[in-house]
């Protein structure tokens, strides 16, 4: 333990810089995934063909190992460092959010949308006042799982010079004498993943409208979006 603290506080190890780099390398892809997946979800959800394509391509992308994506990015961009890493991690983050957006929007009670249109809401009003509030909890569940996946994968980015905790791990793996590096890297990533999970669980709860909260469920719980990415929440 003392050894650990010594390692972390040793300026030569630049732990603070590594932590900052890791967080930036996580945050940027999370934000990019959101910026891509949320509008894309809205655009394709009501178009059967586009939604089918988006769902299947997302599934496909998820099946490709992140390691392979990193290598492809490296080859494609012909550079190492932050940019290819961030793009690869974004590719990891988009599918879970997009899938949940599509499933969530399609799960909104058609009668509610019908009533909204019937009373004279414009398309943007239907989206802002009815669809988005109802889909937000489902989308947030997708964001949560995307974020945790990105954090868990971030050490791999060190392979193509992305920096962050992954450097400790690579260091540790390359030389048995550096076991402490490996340990610090792995523990830090694990803690960051747990923290991310906790933060996004709170966010998810916060964006769930009171009328949809689990505790409220009365006799007919059929209304409202289906929660596919976070079955754990059901029990809450």
């Amino acid at each position, binding site marked *: 333990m003392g050894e650990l603290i010594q390692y972390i506080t040793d300026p030569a190890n630049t732990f603070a810089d590594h932590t900052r780099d890791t967080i930036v390398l996580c945050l940027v892809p999370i934000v990019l995934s959101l910026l891509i997946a949320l509008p894309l979800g809205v655009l394709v959800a009501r178009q059967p063909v586009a939604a089918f394509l988006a769902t299947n391509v997302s599934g496909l992308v998820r099946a490709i190992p992140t390691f392979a994506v990193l290598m492809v990015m490296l080859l494609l961009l012909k550079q190492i460092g932050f940019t290819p890493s961030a793009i690869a991690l974004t590719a990891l983050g988009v599918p879970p959010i997009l899938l949940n957006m599509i499933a969530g929007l399609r799960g909104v*009670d058609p*009668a*509610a*949308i*019908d*009533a*909204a*249109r*019937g*009373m*004279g*809401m*414009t398309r943007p*009003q239907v989206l802002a*006042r*009815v669809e988005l*509030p*109802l889909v937000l909890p489902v989308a947030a569940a997708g964001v949560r799982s995307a974020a945790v996946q990105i954090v868990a994968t971030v050490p791999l980015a060190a392979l193509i010079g992305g920096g962050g905790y992954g450097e400790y791990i690579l260091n540790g793996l390359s030389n048995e004498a550096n076991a402490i590096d490996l340990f610090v890297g792995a523990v830090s990533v694990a803690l960051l993943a747990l923290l991310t999970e906790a933060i996004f669980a709170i966010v998810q709860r916060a964006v769930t*409208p*009171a*009328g*949809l909260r689990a505790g*409220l*469920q*009365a*006799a*007919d*719980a059929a*209304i*409202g979006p289906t929660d596919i990415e976070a079955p754990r929440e059901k029990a809450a």
Partner: protein
Amino acid sequence: MATIEFVDVTKTYPGALRPAVDRVSFTVPEGAICMLLGTSGSGKTTLLRMVNRLIDPTSGAILIDGTPTTQRDPITLRRGIGYVIQQVGLFPHMTIAENVRVVPSILGRPASEMAARVDELLELVGLEPGEYRGRYPRQLSGGQQQRVGLARALAADPSVLLMDEPFGALDAITRERMQEELLRIQRGVRKTILFVSHDVGEALKLGDQIVVMSEGRLIQQGTPVELLAHPADDFVRRLIGGNDSILRQFEYLPVTTALEPGTGEADASDEALAADATLLHALLRMMQSGQSALRIERDGATIGHVSLASISRQVQAGSASTGAPVTAQ
């Protein structure tokens, strides 16, 4: 206030073999309640949704106050029309109060101005505001949700109301209360109402006129009295009367349908019956007083009389295969 005119309205859904609504023409006068009656799948909902342009007709036109709806912007058109949808469709993430004031809110009215109006509307539909305004739709029974749907449609005080089986999920007692409320609203500011119902009693009670639909076509249009007295065909007779045809006529036909001139055998000194009383009222009065004829008054003046014989002739005429003309109106 608005007149709604259907001119040769036809709607064929893409891929459908026959039209869901087939060359339907009729007019709902300003301030009238028009009941749409018909078997399931006869095109009632389709007809209703063409009024606020949720569906556009394949051919024909719908005119509101003389202007074809297709010439109006659908959004503005819909904002002036209250719509109670068949599946209720409350917004699950909004409280009951938020649901009720959603139409005024999209029209830009601040929530603070609406608080009193929301409570008034909740009371109108028989939901204690203090108990229900802060609840969410999931915490309400199906019938209570349906009543919130009605309050929501009334919130912006539209001059046209489209109601698709608005009382379908209500028990007989609550349903009757809601019907009374609707008639009470109608006695104040009169709205032009298109009301889909499966309940013949409801149609006879609420309707200024009834439109009977079958397989997309308009079979008969008329007042409840006209439909009871002269059903256009067996379909209408079965729909309206069923086995209770005679009972229905006693219940809904006014005494004027069996009116005969003069005072006949009625005792001039006896208390007269008002012209808007039903045949059932007349029979009850006769049984109570032991007389076989009653003088009928309108605005204090005797307009004729009814007798057991004239009532019996009228009721038999309405139940027979060929309807006899209404004696008097």
